[in-house]
């Protein structure tokens, strides 16, 4: 009996909200856009701790984590997620984010290991292209 190539599993991405920030419009729009682009999307819901977010990503074998913060707590919460990814040996997971984040904070976060920061007005197509490219690379490496 002929075997067929197993269908390529779609990219899997966690869309997360952290801290006490209830602004979830952006996170939900991104979640839908990534889903419509053919990815598997898990939206964590609100008020997740960095530990919970990284745990979810590992349990779900996710290729990427997108974290949305509009409350001003980004300089605390993004680095905590980076720290958790390192602690869990999961730095291959593509960690990116968005929100109300001033440009020099975004630069600092990228220096700390956040792969990309998208601010209000960033085109969905740009975000989708980024996730496809970076998570695609991760998938090739990790399999």
């Amino acid at each position, binding site marked *: 009996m002929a075997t067929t190539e197993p269908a390529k599993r779609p990219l899997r991405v966690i*869309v997360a909200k952290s*801290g*006490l*920030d*209830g*602004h*979830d*419009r952006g*996170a*939900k*729009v991104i*979640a*839908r*856009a990534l889903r419509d682009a053919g990815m598997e*999307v898990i*939206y*964590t*819901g*609100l008020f997740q701790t960095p530990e919970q977010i990284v745990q979810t990503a590992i349990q779900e074998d996710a290729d990427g984590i997108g974290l949305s913060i509009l*409350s*001003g*707590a*980004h*300089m*605390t*919460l993004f680095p905590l997620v980076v720290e958790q990814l390192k602690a869990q040996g999961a730095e291959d997971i593509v960690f990116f984010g968005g929100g*109300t*984040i*001033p*440009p020099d904070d975004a630069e600092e976060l990228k220096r700390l290991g956040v792969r990309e920061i998208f*601010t*209000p*007005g960033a*085109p*969905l*197509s740009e975000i989708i292209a980024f996730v496809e490219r970076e998570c695609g690379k991760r998938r090739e490496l990790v399999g």
Partner: protein
Amino acid sequence: MIDRPSGLGPDETPEYRELKEGWEARSAAAPPRRGKGSGATDRTISDLPLQPLYGPADVAHLDLARDLGVPGEYPYTRGIHPTMYRSRLWTMRQFAGFGNAKQTNERYHFLLAQGQHGLSVAFDMPTLMGYDSDSPRALGEVGKCGVAIDSVRDMEQLFDGIDLGAITTSMTINGPAAIALAQYVVTAENKGIPRAALGGTLQADILKEYIAQKEWIFPPRPHVRIIVDMMEFCTREMPRWNTISVSGYHIREAGSTAAQELAFTLADGFAYVEAAIARGLDVDAFAPRLSFFFNSHIDFFEEIAKFRAARRIYARRMREVYGAQDPRSWQLRFHTQTAGCSATAQQPENNIVRVAYEAMAAALGGTQSLHTNSMDEVLALPTEKSVEIALRTQQVLAYETNVTNVVDPLGGSYFVEALTDAIERQALEYFDRIAEFGGMIEAVEAGFPQREIADASYRYQRSIESGDRIVVGVNAFEKPDETHPPDLLKIGAEIERGQARAVQEVRANRDGAAVAAALAALKRSCASEANVMPALIDCVRAVATEGEIVEAMVQVYGRYTETTQF
């Protein structure tokens, strides 16, 4: 043949009809701007159909006396006061709060010195969610989105040097609204000002938290009960205090359409009215002190139509459904804030222009007070300079443009009247769908408005993505190598550490037994049918912190968790 002597427009005469037909033929031949990037559309931003031209036929079904009336008279389509801004301008009220109470107090003194009329407190996330500044849940959030208020000591600092009997204060807080009110009452009491002399507004609109803003503490039903307790308390003891500011602002910011904002907000308001009536309160005893809070988005005429429709719907239902007799119970009074979600991070100076148009829509829609956003709020908290520009925008509007000197200047416009009517009809259709759930609380519990808004927000984003809708600087007229304004306001980590230390000191320097007794009494009050306000005031007097008070209440009511959907 129906005689329409009071009809809105003149009937179409044969001469006019001939002219109109000629116009129709010529306009059909004229090619419109078309295609991506043209900005041409035959839908409003909320997807209402737009015609190229409106005329008498579009308003023929409206009745001048029944549907428009005159300003200051039922159904208030044209405004709630007979002379509107000719007699009194709207209140210029800029929302402010950041860092600790001392910093925010300085901003308040600055704003009052610049000619602002009233204060508006923005609280930080931990305060809004009922956590003290030293709670692990507050990590990274203290003082960021607003001011941190842990106990009555912070509230005293916040209003230091400000005469609470002479100004009005709006407090944007919902989950712990009753606690903030108690803190304000005790702060005034300590300065010798009786609670009956206090004027202001508490947002206290919990239903829109579940729908849009997501800063809740307890499940919906106990929350609504506490709100009714506050309504009852204020009705008896604080005649100048507006108990609820029913808010569409956050619903719109979450991505709703204008009609959804209108429908869900009014439905929330009616849910509180029904709950208070069920408590046994007389509708005319509390309704005159309910107020509303709307968003002013960038689709200019649609926003004006929304404000006008809001007044008409509210007046009719308050009178016809809830049996209010006092005209003040029929009047929808509202605060407006320009749309944060219309601002862009790209070329942020353009936001000044957007804010000016949105502010003008609010004025033409008859708002009672207005907050104009600052250009840099999409990136950070506003600087003093950008707040000043925002306030000046209102002052130019109020004093230079002359739009304030004629009441409802767009009343009778074929287009604006037709749009007002269309948006009203959409809202009424939503009321029918909400009724199918059994009411707004049930609809919220079922996630209905949440889903509608998420769908609308995704549609809106797709329309920008596709170029069907133009946002200057974002998908047209971009500046690829643009640099951002360097001077953004940052709240450092030292604020959080200082505030955490301060609340620990407060706890160390008070009568612990008195706090424990007050909290125990509060729990008994929450578990009983008694009004919780007196017990809350006792807790605040004993200098219990907000986190301690909320924790005591959570032990009775539980904490709400949302069913996650996207």
